[in-house]
């Protein structure tokens, strides 16, 4: 029997690692663009001021980069250590993007990071600029591949189940790469990184303004960051919109949970907070049609018919067919050497029901509902903060253009205090995406309880607390070092 405690601790450990990883990665993605833009300004204008500005942000980039790498390696290997059944069952598809990420992206980041950081005197001005951009592009390429892998877990495509090898096997590489979920996920995640970088730079620059230090540096940094951040936010909004449409299409339970929608239908309302609704808005967002049908949690569990006449099976029917699929799988394995005819029949039954294979591991239909309050509120935190941060960046940019920002202490304070908010928004986004997928590791194919490794609960608890201690220690040290470096300042005006 797979213990529930083992599943929960394994999930918690993965969530911990992923959550910490996503504290460091978005800043890498966003700050890379901002400092590369600054260095581009240096190379095109020849103004040393931009070189020093870029170099200061690079220093903070480097401190942050190392911790991102440290948390990232644990994530990669945890697929094997804690989710070993998963690693075999879908490794034929999932392993490929991970390997490609290493070959294409990580070597690029590693090589050009060293050139960027240590190569100022060793390579030419333009080669250095290229290295800075390539470090950032490497980070973005790495996001492409890991998000292709993640999108496949949300919406599996391009594979077939093979009962002889007992795994899903890739049959269409391009379906995997061009998965629509992967494309919106890439834009949504990478551009949210731009927002993180922008708010980080704006907030710290505002601290200098509050201290009346480094005014030119601070205002120039704010200008670049706000533009990058605003572009990023619009891209996040558009890709967020298509993410919603995809959720409605491929993961209706996630959408219903994120909305707390118990009973859906056409003209489904959108809940702003409990008790405050906009009529038909959810239908518009999820289907781009006022009359669009959005199923609620109960509809999904009990089965429903969409306006196009398609009947969607109830939870019990899916579980029944899942059990049939698993039984047929076992029958096929037992009979394939002794009775080929019976094995062929079992194989056919398996193929007919394979779509619901994962439901065979579900014990009760309640297990199919992800934790609604967590996802509901995480979604509102993400969207609400996203809107607020866009407004903040617009105000800051406008004030800066009107040359009034340097005197607006309230705005400076708000910007400084907004740094934690952008991180909160990012974490909330991943909670919606990942907790919203529960109980599935791979939507519909493999639930968490069939994916874990066979290790003891005590072992996972030990590594969980070990990682809590290590990551928290690193976070505290990173913040202390950053604060010291910021207090020290770029010292542009004194030089």
């Amino acid at each position, binding site marked *: 029997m797979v213990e529930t405690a083992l599943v929960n601790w394994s999930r918690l450990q993965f969530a911990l690692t992923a959550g910490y990883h996503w504290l460091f990665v978005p800043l890498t993605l966003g700050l890379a663009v901002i400092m590369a833009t600054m260095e581009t300004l240096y190379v095109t204008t020849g103004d040393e001021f931009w070189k020093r500005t870029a170099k200061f942000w690079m220093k903070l980039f480097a401190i942050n980069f190392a911790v991102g790498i440290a948390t990232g*390696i644990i994530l990669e290997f945890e697929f094997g250590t804690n989710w070993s059944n998963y690693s075999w069952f879908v490794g034929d598809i999932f392993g490929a993007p991970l390997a490609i990420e290493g070959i294409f992206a990580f070597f690029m980041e590693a090589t050009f990071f060293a050139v960027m950081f240590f190569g100022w005197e060793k390579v030419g001005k333009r080669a250095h600029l290229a290295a800075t951009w390539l470090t950032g592009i490497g980070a973005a390429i790495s996001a492409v591949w890991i998000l292709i892998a993640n999108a496949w877990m949300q919406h599996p495509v391009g594979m077939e189940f093979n009962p002889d090898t007992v795994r899903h096997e890739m049959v269409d590489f391009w379906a995997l790469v061009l998965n629509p979920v992967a494309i919106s996920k890439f834009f949504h995640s990478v551009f949210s990184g731009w927002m993180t970088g922008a708010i980080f730079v704006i907030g710290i620059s505002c601290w200098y303004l509050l201290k009346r230090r480094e005014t030119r540096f601070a205002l120039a940094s704010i200008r670049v960051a706000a533009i990058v951040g605003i572009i990023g936010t619009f891209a996040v909004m558009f890709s967020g919109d298509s993410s919603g449409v995809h959720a409605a299409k491929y993961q209706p339970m996630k959408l219903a949970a994120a909305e707390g929608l118990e009973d859906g239908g056409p003209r489904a309302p959108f809940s702003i907070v409990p008790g405050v609704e906009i009529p038909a808005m959810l239908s518009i967002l999820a289907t781009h049609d006022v009359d669009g049908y959005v199923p609620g949690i109960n509809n999904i569990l009990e089965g429903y018919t969409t306006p196009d006449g398609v009947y969607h099976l109830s939870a019990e029917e899916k579980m029944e067919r899942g059990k049939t699929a698993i039984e047929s799988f076992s029958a096929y394995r037992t009979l394939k050497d002794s009775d080929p005819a019976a094995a062929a029949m079992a194989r056919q039954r398996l193929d007919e029901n394979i779509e619901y294979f994962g439901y065979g591991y579900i014990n009760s239909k309640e297990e199919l509902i992800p934790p609604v309050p967590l996802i509901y509120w995480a979604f509102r935190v993400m969207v609400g903060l996203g809107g607020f941060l866009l407004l903040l960046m617009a105000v800051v940019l406008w004030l800066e253009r009107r040359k009034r920002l340097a005197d607006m202490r309230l705005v400076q304070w708000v910007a400084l205090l907004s740094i934690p908010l952008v991180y909160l928004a990012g974490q909330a986004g991943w909670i919606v995406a990942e907790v919203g997928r529960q109980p599935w590791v791979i939507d519909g194919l493999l639930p968490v309880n069939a994916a874990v490794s066979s290790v003891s609960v005590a072992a996972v608890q030990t590594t969980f607390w070990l990682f809590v201690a*290590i990551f928290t220690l690193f976070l505290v040290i990173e913040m*202390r070092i950053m604060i010291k470096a910021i207090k020290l300042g770029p010292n542009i005006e004194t030089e």
Partner: protein
Amino acid sequence: MITYDFLQHYWWFLIALLGGLLVFLLFVQGGNALIFFAGKNEGERQLVVNSTGRKWELTFTTLVTFGGAFFASFPLFYSTSFGGAYWVWILILVTFVFQAVSYEFQGKAGNLLGKNTFRVFLTLNGCLAPLLIGTAVGTFFTGSDFTVNKSAVGDIASPVISRWGNAWHGLEAVANPFNVEFGLMVMLLSISLGALYLINNVDNAKLATQLRRNLGVCFGGFLVLFLVICYHLITMDGFAVDATGAIIIEQGKYFTNLLEMPAVLALLLLGAVLLVAGVVITLLRKDFKRGIWLAGPGTTLAVMALFMIVGYNNTAYYPSTADLSSSLTLANSSSSEFTLRTMAVVSLIIPFVVAYIAYFWRQMDRKSLTTEELNQSEKY
């Protein structure tokens, strides 16, 4: 004709190549093991840290890519070994995690634990990572305590395919002297490579003298263990795949593999000669600094040969002592033909990646590192 069998062997070649490059690049770890032993004062230690610090990400990335490539090409190994030998892999990861932050943190104000603590982390990773990786690779020859039952997926209550046979989850590997000897051999090799790299990369006469002394001791130890391991490999039983596909224990299997695959034997000998030549010339000629460029490629070739001995010629590369039929072979643990083929196309980019790494390595290392340079430019 590119058959499934060919693709499996091609991917094992790439795994061997990545494994070989990884052990070469463990010079970063080996160099860090020497921070306190070779560096007698702050200036020298700073040179060591900054010298390996400009390469550590390549080693780290090679490790990650080695894992990723293994996952993509032989996923049953990924699930069986990582999920089973849980503690070994977690320990390896933890030492690397500490290493990843230590460069950046050690020299910075506000780092909470102090400069030396982070350098101790680097030294610990420098010794433990090669030791543990070597011990884990030792089990490729001696076997591990696991079972694989793919039909378990049909058992709704307990669908786990790969199971470990004991609660030590991999730590039991130290009970077998071969594994420990293998681990120590890799550790002493990486320290030797670290010394050779630093002799080449740092321009400091006093440090170089000390490094040559360290090199002599470590390489001496390595040679003893290398001969012990060679003796084992020639005499020990191996895990063979017979004509029916069953796994059997075959006397002297690994030695047979060497004799039956003369190209692999040649690779191993060439690797060993380059490695020994790199060290010996460095020790004999005080003005010779390029030993790493003989010993490093030599290491890569020799390690590749070891991977080929344990994987090619109908051999089970990850044998199970609990249940012979559960042992992993290239044929029963690989990805599908489609995935291997797709990834084979992807692998064509590797020479290009190696080329740009080599180009920028040369650009960055045209001059050896000196204290003056550290004082004038960015440093850890």
